């Protein structure tokens, strides 16, 4: 076996990021930094109407401009709708537009200024159609029809486990509340962009997408190509958070322009385009009913989620599924009903954002839970401890929980904030809030596959190179995977490199989503490293005249156990094995598929191989004059199994918290008739350095038997319960509940006055 827990050298240490030196020196190359000879600039013309029939498009004036190489409309495309779950969007509008911001035409020209002029020279005649901006209005009889589906419903399901109405009827208390979340944009600092080149029947894209192979399949569909005709290479990516998972049309349009011009084309969104043409987290209106016994035991739950899909489906139907079901992994209650409606509206299409459906669901359910505690006169900490799930539990939807330190998370988060002492010595306009969350480590979402595969080779100098297509979007996945490989092999971390993701040279993988890379890809990497170690030991045994079982690899040297001077370097073993008659290199694959299950119509089965858990506690102060909410203190405790790289994991946790604080307090766009007003960082307030509260966090000791070295997912869970924790703290501070996000000063003032505004 490999190193025992005590012998570990690298797992649990904060080695510097593999890509860090390039990033602090400005050497890292992002898509906007790339150029090719003869490269053209792409630009997109977007609809200014939320819903309109396209009567006529005249591109002749644009085409006549010197330096314009192509002007494309929907007529120049294969007109094949694409999309991960419900194929319903075209690369360029066909027949009509369904939201303000939709891509109607695209230009490739010698430079950006010329492309800009050409876009402005395109004439489009629209016939405006009645539009609808609220999902429940869209589902009503007589509403404008956006797609050819009944009642504008893209997805619907209703699942009941046990008899919910009977459970609620028998409960001592039933909380019945409706909450609404808010569109939230990923707002990665690097906008979405692509460089495409089409030569000799092969389309090559340098695109800042996560999930290269899934993106390739979607591109192939939209462009009527075979996946093998497309190669995607991932440059440095400036943050994703789900917003770069190929739900939007940027790469498709860039590819169309490259194919039409036979020239490389670069198409990088402006910040405004990232907002109006991005795929934010969907708004959900959630009615939640929870029944409690007098002692706080939860006995039944009923959830009705209406998700505002926007104009096209993207990944929102799946996010809605998570919002409807995932929460039932947290508590011991088995009697649950969930109904989901995903309804089209004439607004920006919605997609994946860190946490997926969880932050929206937690905002509603964890507040309803808190209301139950308040009405029963019980301490939310004690009620959480009473109801929280533990190891070995199977959720009502079939999630099989392995390691689970949720109780310890609740105790640590509340202890860190001084929960009990502060509740005993209350101050006016100050409040405490608690919220919990469970998250997956990978999810069986696509192709009935939840696995990963890598190629690992040991070069003649002993350096280890891993070909892995999972990619790096900034989260630090490649650093963690290199640590896992180095630990398993017994070589220095600096001797392992992970090549950039490239669909032509790496094996099929799913990419970054669902907090899956450390857990799923980590297992594949560890397996490959174990195979390579075995080969090194067998070959070294031959050279050192020892049995492979009597050898070990430490710090890049293969040595006889107990006789460390009888040793060779890994490089010596690899080259001596290769450079001889009949010699061969060390090249192995590692592959691993989680023991999760696909959801059929019954939505039953363990969606992931392992689950992470957390508890968050917030202390806020509300200014009764202005309504301003200040987060005085924030604490959290997380069970993510073994932490491979503490600094990277802490940084994920801190970043997730601050995105959550943005979601809770400031991130919301003013919208009018489906249009975003001021679509830039001036109008959309993500937290800045002055907005961060004092924060204490712990990873509780935990070991997941199915994870690499005991690890589980880290990336998303830190954002899941933040809005709920702050919402609960605000309610505790002012004695009134805010039901819609974000919690703005005007809503707080209105709540203090005993009235509530809608937005």
């Amino acid at each position, binding site marked *: 076996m490999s190193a025992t827990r005590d012998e570990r050298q690298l797992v649990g240490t904060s080695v510097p990021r593999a890509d860090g030196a390039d*990033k602090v020196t400005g050497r890292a190359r992002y898509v906007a930094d790339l150029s090719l000879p003869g490269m053209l600039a792409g630009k997109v013309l977007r609809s200014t109407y939320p819903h309109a029939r396209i009567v006529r498009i005249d591109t002749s004036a644009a085409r006549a401009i010197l330096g314009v190489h192509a002007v494309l409309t929907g007529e120049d495309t294969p007109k094949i709708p694409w999309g991960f779950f419900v194929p319903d969007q075209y690369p360029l509008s066909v027949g009509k537009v369904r939201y303000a911001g939709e891509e109607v035409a695209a230009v490739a020209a010698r430079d950006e200024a010329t492309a800009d002029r050409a876009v402005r020279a395109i004439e489009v005649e629209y016939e405006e159609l009645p539009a609808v901006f609220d999902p429940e209005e869209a589902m009503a009889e007589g509403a404008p029809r956006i797609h050819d589906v009944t009642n504008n419903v893209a997805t619907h399901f209703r699942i009941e486990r046990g008899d919910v109405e009977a459970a609620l009827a028998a409960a001592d208390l039933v909380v019945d509340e409706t909450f609404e979340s808010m569109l939230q944009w990923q707002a990665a*600092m*690097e906008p979405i962009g692509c460089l495409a080149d089409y030569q000799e029947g092969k389309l090559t894209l340098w695109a800042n997408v996560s999930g290269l192979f899934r993106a390739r399949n979607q591109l192939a569909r939209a462009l009527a190509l075979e996946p093998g005709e497309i190669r995607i290479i991932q440059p440095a990516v400036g943050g994703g958070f789900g917003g770069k998972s190929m739900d939007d049309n940027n790469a498709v349009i860039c590819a169309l322009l490259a194919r039409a011009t036979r020239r490389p084309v670069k198409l990088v969104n402006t910040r405004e385009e990232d907002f109006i043409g991005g795929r934010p987290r969907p708004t959900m209106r959630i009615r939640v009913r929870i029944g409690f016994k007098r002692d706080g035991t939860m006995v039944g739950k009923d959830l009705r989620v209406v998700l505002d899909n926007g104009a096209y489906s993207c990944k929102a139907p799946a996010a809605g599924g998570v919002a409807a079901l995932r929460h039932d992994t947290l508590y011991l209650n088995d009697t649950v009903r969930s109904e989901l409606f995903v309804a089209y509206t004439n607004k920006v299409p919605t997609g994946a954002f860190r946490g997926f459906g969880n932050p929206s669901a937690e905002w509603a359910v964890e507040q309803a839970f808190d209301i139950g505690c308040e009405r029963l006169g019980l301490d939310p900490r004690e009620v959480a401890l009473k109801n929280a799930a533990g190891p070995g539990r199977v959720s009502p939807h079939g999630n099989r929980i392995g390691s689970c330190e949720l109780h310890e998370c609740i105790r640590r988060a509340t202890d860190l904030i001084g929960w009990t002492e502060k509740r005993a010595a209350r101050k006016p306009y100050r409040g405490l809030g608690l919220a919990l969350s469970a998250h997956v480590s990978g999810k069986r979402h696509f192709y009935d596959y939840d696995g990963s595969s890598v190629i690992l080779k040991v070069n003649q100098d002993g350096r280890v190179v891993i070909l892995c297509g999972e990619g790096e979007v900034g989260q630090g996945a490649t650093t963690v995977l290199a640590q896992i490989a180095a630990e398993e092999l017994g070589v220095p971390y600096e001797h392992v490199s992970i090549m950039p993701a490239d669909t032509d040279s790496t094996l099929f993988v799913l990419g970054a989503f669902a907090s899956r890379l450390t857990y799923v890809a980590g297992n594949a990497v560890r397996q490959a490293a174990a195979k390579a170690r075995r080969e090194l030991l067998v070959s070294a045994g031959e050279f050192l005249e020892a049995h492979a079982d009597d050898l070990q690899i430490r710090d890049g040297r293969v040595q006889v156990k107990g006789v460390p001077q009888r040793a060779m370097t890994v490089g010596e073993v690899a080259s001596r094995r290769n450079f001889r008659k009949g010699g061969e290199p060390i090249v192995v694959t590692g592959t691993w598929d989680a023991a999760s299950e696909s959801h059929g119509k019954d939505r039953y089965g363990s969606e992931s191989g392992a689950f992470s858990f957390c508890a968050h506690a917030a202390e806020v102060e509300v200014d009764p004059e202005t309504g301003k909410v200040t987060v005085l203190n924030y604490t959290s405790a997380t069970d993510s199994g073994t932490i491979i790289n503490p600094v990277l994991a802490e940084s994920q946790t*801190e970043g997730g918290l601050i995105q959550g604080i943005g979601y809770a307090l400031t991130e919301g766009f003013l919208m009018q008739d489906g249009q975003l007003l001021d679509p830039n960082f*001036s109008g959309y307030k993500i937290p800045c*350095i002055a907005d961060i509260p004092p924060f204490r966090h712990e990873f509780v000791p935990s070991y997941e038997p199915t994870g690499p070295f005991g690890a589980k997912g880290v990336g998303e869970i830190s954002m899941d319960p933040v809005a709920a924790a702050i919402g609960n703290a605000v309610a505790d501070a002012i004695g009134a509940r805010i039901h819609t996000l974000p919690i703005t000063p005007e809503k707080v003032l209105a709540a203090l006055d005993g009235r509530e505004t809608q937005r």
Partner: protein
Amino acid sequence: MSLRTITITVNGMRHEVDVRPNVRLIDLLREDLALTGTKEGCSVGVCGACTVLVDGRSVSACLTLAVMVAGREVLTIEGLAEGDALHPLQQAFLERGGLQCGFCTPGQIMAAKALLDERPHPDDEEIRVAMLGNLCRCTGYYKIIESIKAAAGDVAARRQEARA
């Protein structure tokens, strides 16, 4: 628009360039001088990704016209390290997790350099004020503050050594 010939010093090297009066400093750096370490995040001077130093003061290169820096000294992220030796700020961001995706990092480091040049030992409040204009979506800022503090100690130590 007619071209104007200007002389600017970038990272210690003098350049004579012909620019249109409407060309932004960020375009001059990224396109004419191939210094792509300076990033464009919002184009309206709100995000700070394009922060560079002009005569030691931090500016947004997306809001600065190239002709405005004629005769002046510009420092970009590429000019910070001395050969292979990283600047203490670069070293601290690297070691203390002051970055994830890295896109805002050049701007963060340049803004922090302007701060440390003026205030070698900034307190938390001074760091917050100086770094207000540099958005980061990944780190939540905690490790950026920690990196700047660590670098401040390191910069001060080097100055001491130099004096001794």
